[in-house]
Structures are given as structure tokens and as C-alpha cells.
């Protein structure tokens, strides 16, 4: 698989293919090091191995070529013709048009799956106004999320809305890209043909936001920002406890909720007797619960709540994840090494029976350029010689 560019959407899709055992080649433009150099110096940014870059590009090979120039695009096409999958952004400037002149259609006919990730979709007759070919709009994960409706309903109503970090729309796009390519590989298995796939980050973000869209479509109301809550019932909130925070979803199991806090008599309190009363009187219930939670230890509450089959989870800090007993038991974070030392790597989102950890570090810039482009040239020569030999044999036979 060839992954062009190291933005989060393409890079995370590439990472998921790494986890399937694929050989993934990361193509970067020379000197374009924004993702490599993002973050604090001690995180690896100073030497072009930022934490996020390391995580997203683990076990890939690295090629540097300038796909903003015709020679670079031609090299990219040669690389793509020898790949099963190409994931790329729209190419800079006039290079998209140059790309189309390089018989990529032929490569697709022969089986290449090409997926283009863009902010709002590729230009075309039905592309939509944000993909105007005369000046397509730009989006990062934040803009795509904003236009999908999620930040509008995130956060405290007394404060400005909140973006959910990090880069939710880019991760959504990545997993949609991964799934779509696998669908196209099934198609290839059936038909022998590759595919061209147009995936917009905006569309992917919208596909992840069903909750805010169903309300106006069904019951004629528009969801507003209302804390960290579902709107159908209370309690569903984040509570502070003695040593941290808890996500509590107790609105549909209030009997168990009352047992958790040792107040079974609440079931007979007219203020809280049913779900709608509890919602209507949430400030009173919130005060009562908050005063109980603040006296409790986080993990003890989680254990007790889950015994009662209540959906309560700890608000776990990132620094706790690697040593969390459940994560450790499942090897959800494993420890690898690269030039900077220990690397704590998160496990893939699913475990196939054939999954094996990959130990190769994220590539240095252009680390495999000579090796890979050299191999492409060798293979092309061998193919040409083979074709020539076959032609000669054909001539002799005639």
C-alpha cells in the first residue's frame, strides 16, 4: 500500500493496514515536516519523530519525492502501478491533471484501488459548492467536525462550544478509508478490477454524527449544548469524586443508581420517581449526587457500579492507560523501541487471529527512497526484458 502524505486521516488508515500485515510505503514531500515536528522538543519533534508521527507511521517504509512537480508525480505513478492500494490527497496545483494523463486508469483496470481523501470531495458535476473546482474550500478536522454538527452540542451551555480533540474527523475519515478500501479489495477479488474512491472528511464526520441529526428529522426539535449529557434522562453526566472524575449513565437504571449511592428511598421521592421527573428536576438530583460522589474513590465506585450493571466509567488520564490493569491484561498498549528509546504503542481496534505485532520503527525521512525506487526500476526492467523476450519468442514461433 502507498500512503501519500502524513496527515492524520491518511496516516491512521495506513496504520490500520500495517496492523493487517501490509507493507505500507509512506510518501512525503522533501522538507514537509509539519507532522514530524509537531509537539514539544522532548516528544521527538526536534528530530522529526514526533509522538503522533511515530504512532501513526509505525512499521511503515519512507520514501521522499516531490509530488508537486511533474517528475515526482511520474515517480509516484510508477510506485502506484506496483501497489495494490494507493491512498492520497488531491495533488497540488496542476498535478492532479498531470496525474490523470499517466494512465492511472489502466492501473485501476489492472487492480489498483485508489482512494482520494479531500476536505469536501473531488470536483465534479455533483461535487457540491464547497468542492468548487475554481477554488475548493479547505478544511482540517475541526472545520469538518463543525460543519457536521458535533461541536454545536458539545460542552457547557454557558460557555463557547467545544471541539472534541484530537482530530476526531480525521480518525473518522481514516477508518472509513480503511473500510472502503477493503470493500474495494473484495470487489477486485470478484471482478479483477480496481476502483477509484472519493472520500471527503466532511462526509465522514457527518456519518459519525447521527445523534444530532435524528432529533430534527423525527421529533422536530434541535439539540442544544447541554453539558456532557444525553437529553432523554438524568443522571447522565460527569461527576467529580475524591480522586478524579467519573462518567455516570444512570438514567435508565435509577433503581441501581439509588442502590449505588445507598439511597433506595429516592425511588419513592416524588421529585425523582420517574425518568421525566428526574430530568425535569435535574439540578436537585445533580446536587444530591455530586455531594455523594465527591466523597468517594473513583475506582471503587466503578467496581461497585459495574456489579450493579450500571454504566459508570472512570475518566482515565492518558498517563494511566499504559498501566491500567485491563489494558495490561489485554496488552492494549505494548512497548517497542526506536532511536529515541521506549515507545508505548496502542493496540489496533480489533484483533484478528493472524495479528502479530510489528517491530519496525517509524521511518526516518526518505529512509527507504533509494531501496524502494531502485526496486521499482529493477522490476520495470525485468518486466520489459521479459516482454521483449516473449515478443522475440513469439516472432521466432511465427
Amino acid at each position: 500500500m502507498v500512503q501519500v502524505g502524513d496527515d492524520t486521516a491518511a496516516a491512521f488508515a495506513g496504520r490500520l493496514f500495517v496492523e493487517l500485515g501490509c507493507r505500507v510505503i509512506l510518501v512525503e514531500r522533501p522538507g514537509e515536516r509539519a507532522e514530524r515536528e509537531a509537539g514539544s522538543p522532548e516528544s521527538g519533534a526536534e528530530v522529526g519523530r514526533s509522538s503522533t508521527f511515530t504512532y501513526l507511521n509505525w512499521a511503515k517504509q519512507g520514501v521522499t519525492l516531490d509530488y508537486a512537480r511533474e517528475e515526482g508525480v511520474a515517480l509516484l505513478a510508477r510506485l502506484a502501478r506496483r501497489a495494490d492500494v494507493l491512498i492520497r490527497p488531491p495533488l497540488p496545483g496542476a498535478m492532479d491533471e498531470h496525474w490523470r494523463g499517466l494512465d492511472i486508469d489502466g492501473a485501476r483496470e489492472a487492480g489498483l484501488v485508489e482512494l482520494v481523501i479531500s476536505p469536501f470531495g473531488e470536483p465534479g458535476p455533483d461535487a457540491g459548492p464547497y468542492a468548487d473546482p475554481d477554488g475548493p474550500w479547505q478544511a482540517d478536522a475541526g472545520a469538518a467536525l463543525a460543519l457536521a454538527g458535533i461541536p454545536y452540542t458539545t460542552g457547557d451551555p454557558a460557555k463557547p462550544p467545544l471541539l472534541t480533540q484530537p482530530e476526531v474527523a480525521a480518525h473518522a475519515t481514516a477508518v472509513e478509508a480503511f473500510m472502503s478500501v477493503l470493500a474495494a479489495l473484495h470487489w477486485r477479488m470478484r471482478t479483477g478490477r480496481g476502483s477509484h474512491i472519493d472520500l471527503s472528511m466532511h462526509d465522514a464526520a457527518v456519518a459519525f454524527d447521527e445523534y444530532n441529526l435524528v432529533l430534527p428529522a423525527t421529533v422536530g426539535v434541535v439539540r442544544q449544548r447541554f453539558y456532557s449529557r444525553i437529553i432523554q434522562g438524568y443522571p447522565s453526566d460527569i461527576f467529580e469524586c475524591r480522586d478524579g472524575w467519573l462518567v455516570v449513565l444512570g438514567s435508565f437504571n435509577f433503581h441501581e443508581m439509588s442502590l449505588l449511592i445507598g439511597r433506595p428511598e429516592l425511588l419513592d421521592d416524588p421529585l425523582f420517581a420517574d425518568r421525566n421527573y428526574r430530568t425535569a428536576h435535574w439540578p436537585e438530583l445533580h446536587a444530591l449526587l455530586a455531594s455523594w460522589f465527591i466523597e468517594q474513590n473513583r475506582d471503587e465506585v466503578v467496581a461497585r457500579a459495574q456489579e450493579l450493571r450500571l454504566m459508570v466509567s472512570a475518566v482515565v488520564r492518558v498517563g494511566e492507560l499504559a498501566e491500567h490493569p485491563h489494558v495490561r491484561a489485554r496488552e492494549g498498549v505494548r512497548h517497542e523501541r526506536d532511536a529515541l528509546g521506549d515507545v508505548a504503542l496502542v493496540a489496533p481496534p480489533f484483533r484478528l487471529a493472524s495479528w502479530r505485532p510489528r517491530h519496525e520503527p517509524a521511518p526516518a525521512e526518505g529512509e527507504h527512497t533509494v531501496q524502494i525506487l531502485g526496486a521499482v526500476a529493477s522490476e520495470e526492467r525485468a518486466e520489459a526484458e521479459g516482454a521483449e523476450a516473449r515478443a522475440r519468442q513469439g516472432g521466432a514461433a511465427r
Partner: protein
Amino acid sequence: MSAPERPLEGLRVLDFSHIWAGPICARILGDLGADVIKIEGPGRYDGMRNLFLMANDTDDDYWNRSGFFQNRNQNKRGVAVDLTTEEGRELIRGLVPHADVVVENFTPRVMPAFGLGYDRLAELNPGIVMISMSGYGATGPYSRFGAIGLSLDGSTGLSASNGHPGDRPEKSGSAFLDPFGGVSGAAAVMAALLERERTSRGQFIDLSQHEGGINFVGGYVVEHGRSGREPERRGSRSDRLAPQGIYPCDGDEEWIYLSVRDEAGWRALCEELGAPALAEEPGFGSAAERLARHDALDERLAERTRLREKRELMAALQRRGVIAGALLDGAEVLNDPHLAARDTFESIDVGTPPRPYPSQRALPARFDDFAPRPAGPAPRLGEHNGEVFGGLLGLDESDLARLAADGVIGTEPRFAIPVDEQRDIIRYPLAMWVGLGSVRWLAPDGSHGLAPGEPQPAEAQPTDAQPESAGS
């Protein structure tokens, strides 16, 4: 054999899942051509059938009219079988040799308790691919814990990383870990099916939605390992770009997100806001300086952005090459002209009487060589009992009638409480919600192109204390 129209044609999926992640996984497989059979029970149907019914109407067969259920269960056939009966379980075991994939998202104890664990299924069909999409995975001390996307924001590190600076952690306004689990589940199934082509063997896929969520913070985990640094809650800001954030626009609850990538973008933003001098002001000359004075910068920018209409400002900034996105509410997303041009929503008729519903695509990608199945109504409860059990197991009308009479299969729910009480429970008190501020009415003139709600007296309150049961 005729040429396929879609990649997964000829494959069959048994979908035991409920709520969101599992159903959307199975819907994707169905949209791609697989024959998906959704398996529910008359006494235990997918709880999403109770949520957000068309027009908040709980009369008649309301359980066939949920918006959530529609989105997640199109392109499936539906059977309703009582798995608490041996005969019901035997019916399902009879389907297994006819299937390629099993999708479920219970806690790990449930399927084995029904005699439908992977080992048993593999005895019946060694080629079966089973995906278990539980909250915390099939192993480990939390494996018995229940979870949904809304609760996993906390345990994955996401909530801890989100919120205003110095403020409490927050969950996202949408439970996006559910669709993330669903989409990655569909991908995992397709990967396992490709592997089956090579090995002729099926397999068990353990998908932990918790681990999926941790992937969002994978970079933070590496960073913490290297530097010991915990990500700070930084609101909507970037840790390297400035300005970036959400700014007020003209009107109540109107906002815009913008992010400046470079100095040219910074100057363009200032010019568009009518403040070119701001770009030259000492202290704002580089991203690092702007990051250090972000609060002061935001005040200056907000003075200008609040004079502008959000969509107009978005378009103006985009024309200047500045990344900007208006914060749209749910109704505005449904009516967004760009999404309309891309046929993101397909209108389908749902329920009796039929009501139009803007069905959402489960596959946002556009493929040049094939198209996913078009949208259509999700199955009514037990709608295809006869078709599935007759067609695949050879049961005749009398067999089916006896099974229905014995309550093994059915098309009507069995509630633990009188159905009229159930109808009252799931009818939403919309006016009360409006009064609380968690929702507002859709524009009453229908200008959103959507059915407006039925405004009710703002003081309307629940009148009866009712038992807490969803009956599913």
C-alpha cells in the same frame, strides 16, 4: 453466474447486535451487498426501536418507526426469535451453516449462554467469521463490564483530554466511538473474509470498543511515555497554530471555527475582519507569540467575528484560503447545500402511515465502479420470519404457525408491562426539554424542509409516576 453488482453479494450475515456499533457494522455489510438477517426477540428487541419515533408518535406499531433504528438497520431482513427457548436457539443454530458472518455486541457471557459461542458456531460451520464487539473486549478484568459509546469517552482518555482550559473534563456532543466501532468492525470482517479466501478457515474477531477509542489518543500515549506529559485540556485551540478556536458570530448561539496555518493566513484573517493593523501589532507577529497571548487575541477577534453572519464569514475566509467552518446545528446539517448536492441524505418512507425520513448514508465514500444498495426502510419486527425460516430451513406454513403460537417466533413485542404504559413511557416530553434548554423547536414554518415539532405548553410536565422499563 452473472456479474456481481456489489462486493459482498452472495455472503450472508447473522446480526445479533443492538444499539449502534454492531447494527451499523452489519448495515455496512448489507449496503455492500451481503444478505443481512437481523435477529431480535419478541421479548427482547433492539432498544433503539424505542428511541426517537417519527413525530414522537407512540401509537400503533411504534417500534417500527424509530429514526435511530432506521439509520442503523436498513438493507437487512429481520426475524424475531425467542432465544430463551431451546427451540428458538435451535432455529438459529440451523441458520449458522447458511451464514458467513455473525455480528454481536453483547458482553462476552451472553452468546455462550445461548449456546451460540464461537466454538459452537465453528463446529456448525468452520468457515464462519464471528465478530464480537463488546465494550471492553472478550478478555481482561473489565470484559464483563457493560459500555456504550457515551460511557467510553471516559475510560479511553478522551474526556480527560477535552474541556476548556482549567475546567472539568467533557464528553463529546455525539457518541462517535459507536460508529467508529461499527466501521472498524465492518472492516475487520472484510479483512477476515479476505483471509478466509486464502486459508478456507473462519475466525473469531475480538473487537474491544474501548481499545478502538484509545486509538484516538495513541499519539498522546507515545508522548506520555517519552516525556511524562499529560495532554492539557485546551478547549478548541491547537498546541501549535494560532489563532485557532470557536468564535461568536452574529445571532444567538451562532459560531464559527477557524484555524490559521501560516502568516499569510493570519494577514488574510485580519484583513477579512477589517482589522489589518492587528496583523502588524507587536506580540502577534508569530504563531508562538499568538499562542502565548491567545486569550487577548481571542477577545480582539471575537469583537469582529460577532458582527458577521457565520456562513457569510465562512465563505469569505475560505475564499482567502483560511480554514473556516460554521458550527451547524442538526437541522442545518440536514439542509446543508453541499451535503444535498452529494446526496448525503435519501428520503425514505417509514412506518404506517408512511412518513418521510432523511436517511443517512452508512458509507460516505463514493465508489466509481459500484454503488451501495439504495436506502430503504429497516425491517419491521419479525418481518421476514417466514421468508428466512421457510427459505433457509424449509419450514412450512404450519410449522411457522405453531412456532408463532408457542411464542418462539413473533411479530409483536411482548412487554413486561401493559402496552399503553409502555407507550406513555417512551413518548418524549418535548416541551419540558425545550423548557430545560436541552433542545429547541425546529422552525415552526417548516423552513428547514423538515417536519416541525408540535409545540406544547412550556409548563407541561409529566403527570404520572411510571415504572422504569424500556421493555427491550
